[in-house]
């Protein structure tokens, strides 16, 4: 009886160890905000992301200075005044795809999922729940999400004088193509 149990547990264990982990070093995170005065948009193509297909664990990590803008001065102000990227060089997300079981990694298709976890930026951590999709195409895994966050939630203040040019919320777009670990 004991033997059977141990064998069973070991096999469970080894399954867990073999858990399929996907990763990318070129996840794209971009943000966009539009006002009548000007559009603010920037993209970071060097975000790191890890997805565990078994547990649904999902993590992101990026260097704030990796966001690039069309206007050089805007990029400077983004780093200097808004994100304070000397002080807070990294932004991270640590969470889970709560309904990972609904994704069949062996079958082509686009699966709607819900991602829940802790988003940390500008030194502030907030729990967020956002909708996203996981796409399987011939064994290749990619993930996309689009959601809106409020700058005030992350202690990013907009001075009164530029409140006409900067929205209080920004739209984040995440797009990653994963490789197998």
């Amino acid at each position, binding site marked *: 009886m004991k033997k059977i149990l141990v064998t069973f547990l070991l096999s469970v264990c080894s399954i867990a160890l073999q858990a399929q982990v996907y990763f990318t070093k070129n996840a794209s995170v971009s943000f966009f905000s539009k006002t009548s005065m000007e559009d603010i948009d920037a993209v970071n193509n060097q975000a790191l992301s890890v997805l*565990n297909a078994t547990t649904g664990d999902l993590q992101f990590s990026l260097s704030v200075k990796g966001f690039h803008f069309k206007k050089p*001065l805007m990029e400077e102000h983004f780093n200097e005044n808004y994100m304070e990227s000397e002080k807070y060089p990294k932004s991270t997300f640590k969470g889970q795809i709560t309904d990972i079981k609904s994704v069949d990694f062996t079958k082509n298709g686009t699966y709607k999922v819900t991602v829940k976890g802790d988003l940390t930026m500008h030194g502030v951590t907030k729990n967020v729940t956002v909708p996203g999709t996981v796409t399987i195409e011939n064994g290749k895994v990619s993930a996309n999400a689009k959601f809106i966050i409020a700058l005030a939630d992350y202690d990013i203040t907009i*001075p009164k004088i530029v409140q006409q040019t900067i929205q209080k919320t920004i739209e984040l777009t995440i797009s990653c193509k994963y490789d197998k670990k």
Partner: protein
Amino acid sequence: MKTYSTALSMMALVLFSLSTKAQDTTDVMSQLENEMKQEDAQKTEYVTATFKTTRLINGHSTENVGKHVLDFRISHRFGPLNSGAYNLFGLDNATMKLDFDYGITDRLMVGVGRSTYQKTFDAFFKYKILRQSKGKKNMPITMSYVPTISLNSMKWANPDQKNYFSSRLAFVHQLVIGRKFSEGTSFEIVPTYVHRNLVALSGDKNDIYAIGIGGRQKLTKRISINAEYYYQFKGEDDDEGNVTKTTNNLSIGFDIETGGHVFQLHFTNSTSMNEKGFIGENTGKWSNGDVLFGFNISRVFNIGKRH
């Protein structure tokens, strides 16, 4: 007892498998982050925002405008505070300068300007020879070379005598050497050589050597306090009345940055906003109250594609 130990080993195994599950993702992430760090160490990261704008107060800072960015600048210096209530402490008089500066690359900018002081036209370029950086290339300072040519377009004082066009010209060569010590604190020194083709008095020298020192300290994210001092190496003092009694230029001011604008408000003892003027021909004395209020406004526009 046997059952007990079985249960224990079972629990241990379950815990082990659980912890492996949870750690998996984090382990892979920290591995990726380490790889990224090693890659970053192979890159050079240039320091940005040493100063808020391309001028500290009167003189140049180590900043350039970005590639394909036009910086339109309007600067005013009012009259001296000691001109009294009759002139509203200087506000009745104003000297103005307009500048159009443009970034050809991120390291090279050019500019033209026109000032009401001696109806001066000027043109310069600023090239960053060294850029403060860390990472693969470690450079402690930024150093720019800034040559300026200025043209006094006033009508000749003595139109009857033979006047030469070259007499209108003056040349300035500067090295702006600066360092951002921390997020809020930056300093610069500016060795300067000024050559004037024509000087006012017979004892005045055509060549002036000077050194500028300046710095900024951020008070908030968008406001900094700046100071700037240009010291002229005059040599022995000539007191026979045929030398213009010049003074060194001292200015103190604030930078207020709001998006695409930078407002610079300051007090200075110089009316001129041209290097030749505020370094070489300044006569105001702080101790006499020859202090002028002034401001620069900078507004940047993006022209053309950046990439």
